[in-house]
């Protein structure tokens, strides 16, 4: 009896001697912070593989995947050195490694043989997919690995690149050390500028794909030192194929229609110049009148609150009618902008990215069940419905001076 107890007590010590299966010191991990997915530049890889092992199973498509890995030593070093004398060009805080294969997981494994570090995805910040890949409708296949692996987080930001995705990760931002983190924070900020769709997290994207909704993802275009996130790529619900882009104007309009504007500005023409309205708050409300599948009438009411941020004309804002008048002008501007977006979305792309289907599902469930399969596909009732926009703007304050600085009236 006692012996048995002794054995039980001793077992933990065996753990300690044999254990530590999973111990990988933090400096031995290759933190992947960004992933870029492209189509391979040439078909050479596939041909070689077929030659090498003709019977080896192969996927339909091959990808060139770039992993951005942190070089931790250089993340901290620069802060100490300041004017580092010894070749600061070499001390980049991250490195990009590109590999080509048909399985994304395989690329990750292959990477560990090339970098001495095993890839570790818990700190993955952005996934950039090139428009080339996006247009083929392979998004779900590509992203499966990033959703399935328990190391992944659902908060990873998704971006679509105009041009090759790898170039996006190659930017050298002057103020941030890691391009991926730079991308993440840029996408967070531009969202506030109303020019961009709220950040699409990969988890949310899975939701779109599973619920068969059309969706938009922010588009990014790379340049040497910085990236520009503006406009968005629009995807169709059925095949997840990218249809095209909405430009910045249309994006802003679409954001208004979804009630997701968190900031930004509107320029209103007054007299021969501009007054700038700063958006502080925005909300939308949808109403629908259903008179048949082909005859649905939506009214989207947009409410906004904001300030006058800038005035290039000499106006007396204290005049009693001034602010209501300005409010009407802002409303007009909102209507103009949203109408442009609606035209593009409804008539050109015919993909419901303003959440009307969702509204029907939530509020007119029985009707939705009837039109569900032909909403923005097949018959495409979406493109046939009538959408009206109403705007209600309140200007809360005009700043701390009254007239503009130029005195001439």
């Amino acid at each position, binding site marked *: *009896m006692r012996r048995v*107890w002794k054995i039980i007590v001793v077992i933990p010590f065996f753990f300690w001697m044999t254990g530590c*299966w999973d111990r990988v010191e933090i400096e031995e991990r290759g933190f992947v912070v960004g992933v870029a997915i492209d189509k391979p530049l040439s078909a050479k890889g596939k041909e070689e593989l077929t030659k090498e092992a003709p019977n080896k199973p192969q996927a339909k498509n091959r990808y060139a995947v770039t992993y951005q890995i942190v070089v931790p030593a250089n993340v901290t070093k620069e802060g100490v050195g300041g004017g580092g004398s010894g070749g600061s060009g070499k001390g980049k805080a991250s490195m990009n490694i590109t590999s080509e294969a048909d399985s994304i997981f395989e690329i990750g494994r292959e990477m560990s043989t090339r970098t001495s570090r095993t890839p570790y995805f818990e700190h993955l910040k952005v996934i950039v997919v090139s428009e080339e890949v996006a247009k083929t409708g392979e998004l779900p296949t590509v992203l499966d690995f990033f959703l399935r692996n328990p190391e992944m987080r659902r908060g990873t930001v998704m971006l679509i690149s105009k041009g090759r995705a790898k170039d996006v990760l190659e930017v050298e931002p002057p103020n941030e050390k890691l391009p991926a983190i730079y991308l993440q924070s840029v996408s967070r900020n531009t969202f506030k500028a109303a020019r961009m769709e709220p950040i699409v997290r990969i988890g949310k994207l*899975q*939701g779109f794909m*599973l619920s068969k909704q059309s969706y938009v993802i922010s588009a990014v275009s790379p340049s040497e030192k910085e990236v520009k996130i503006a406009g968005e790529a629009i995807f169709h619900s059925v095949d997840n194929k990218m249809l095209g882009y909405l430009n910045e104007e249309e994006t802003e309009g679409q954001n208004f229609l979804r009630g997701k504007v968190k900031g930004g500005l509107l320029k209103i023409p007054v007299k021969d110049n501009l007054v700038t309205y700063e958006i502080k708050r925005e909300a939308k409300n949808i109403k629908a009148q259903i008179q048949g599948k082909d005859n649905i009438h939506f009214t989207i009411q947009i409410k906004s609150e904001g300030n006058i941020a800038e005035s290039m004309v000499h106006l007396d804002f204290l005049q009693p009618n001034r602010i209501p008048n300005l409010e009407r002008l802002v409303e007009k501007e909102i209507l103009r902008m949203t109408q442009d977006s609606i035209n593009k979305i409804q008539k050109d792309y015919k993909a419901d990215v303003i959440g009307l289907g969702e509204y029907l599902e*939530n509020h007119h469930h029985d009707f939705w069940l009837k039109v569900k399969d032909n909403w923005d596909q097949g018959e495409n009732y979406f493109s046939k419905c009538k959408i009206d926009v109403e705007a209600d703007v309140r200007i809360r304050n005009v700043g701390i001076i009254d007239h503009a600085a130029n005195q001439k009236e």
Partner: protein
Amino acid sequence: MKNFQYGDEHIGYKEIFFGVSAMVIGQGILTLPRILTEKTESIDGWMCIALGGLLAIVSAWAIAKVSSYYPNQPFTDYVKVLVTKPIGIFLIVFFFIYSVGFVGFEVRALAEGTKLYLFDRTPVEVIALSFFLVIIYAVSGTRVALLRLNLMFTPIVLGVTFLILLMNLGFVERENFQPLFVSSWKSILNGTKDTAFSFLGGEILYFYVALMRNPKQAPKAALLGMIMPVLLYIIIFLSVVGLFGPEVTREIMYPTVEMAKEVEVPGAFLERFESLFNTVWIMTVFNTASMGYDLCLILITSLIRKGKRKTWIILLSPFIYLLGLIPKNMNQVAKALDYVGFMGIFISFILPFILLLVVALRKGKNYA
């Protein structure tokens, strides 16, 4: 020093209350949102939880009521009086098989989940073994201490869970809460059946009411103790579905863990909350499994009166551990837990009413 006690080996109202809550909150919470969204439309799964919860609450009350008729007698004693000895012994054996399976598979399920999220190469066997050793250590102590552990862990569990829910509030999307009431009654009943598995745990009342100083309080304590997990489950379900939407919830293995992973407070020191959630999760399963093991021991020592508690721990432990290792993968573990769950449904949801009926009949006879 010899242990000195002053009437402290009895438990009160609060211990029963927390005991039931801790026993019920367990593995089920992790997968329940997925199972329910699979069965029902939109967010209607909460009705299943409410229905299943109602059943659980009533039957917990019934168990406590039956047990409180026999103060200071555990199930193993009074069941023989109540339904004749042979049937009683059959029930005890049945109960024993149930609790052995329950502990074994519960430990395995925890090990599988832990491996998925926290480990990569560590074998499941080792994860399960280390957890099981902790349970063995717990059941080697006194039974009252076991119940007191609930009081220590359950507040942590609730606190952390609510913290996570609170942090997620900003991510919850209003659209996901609509439409309401669109599932058919059939699918809701179907889902209710599944929630029943998650509300197993009232069976501890068969035994622990006997330890109570004042068994009259038992039914009320059981009732309230059951209400807590029901509410918790509804809240968790609503926020998981509110966060992910029904379509995604359906696809995620452990939606509740993913919810904890979703929390990212940018810039905050504790950017990631799932570590806290893992803690909580292991604690709840520990409570559940250790009380389950304690039931095994009570049952077996009542069947075979030879041998001390510790002897039985040594004899049973390898068996339970190996039993837990039989399933080959996560799906089989889930299936095994379902089979055990069916036995549990009989014990916790059907048997109490039968016993209550018998008690009523006997009482009637006595008075007549």
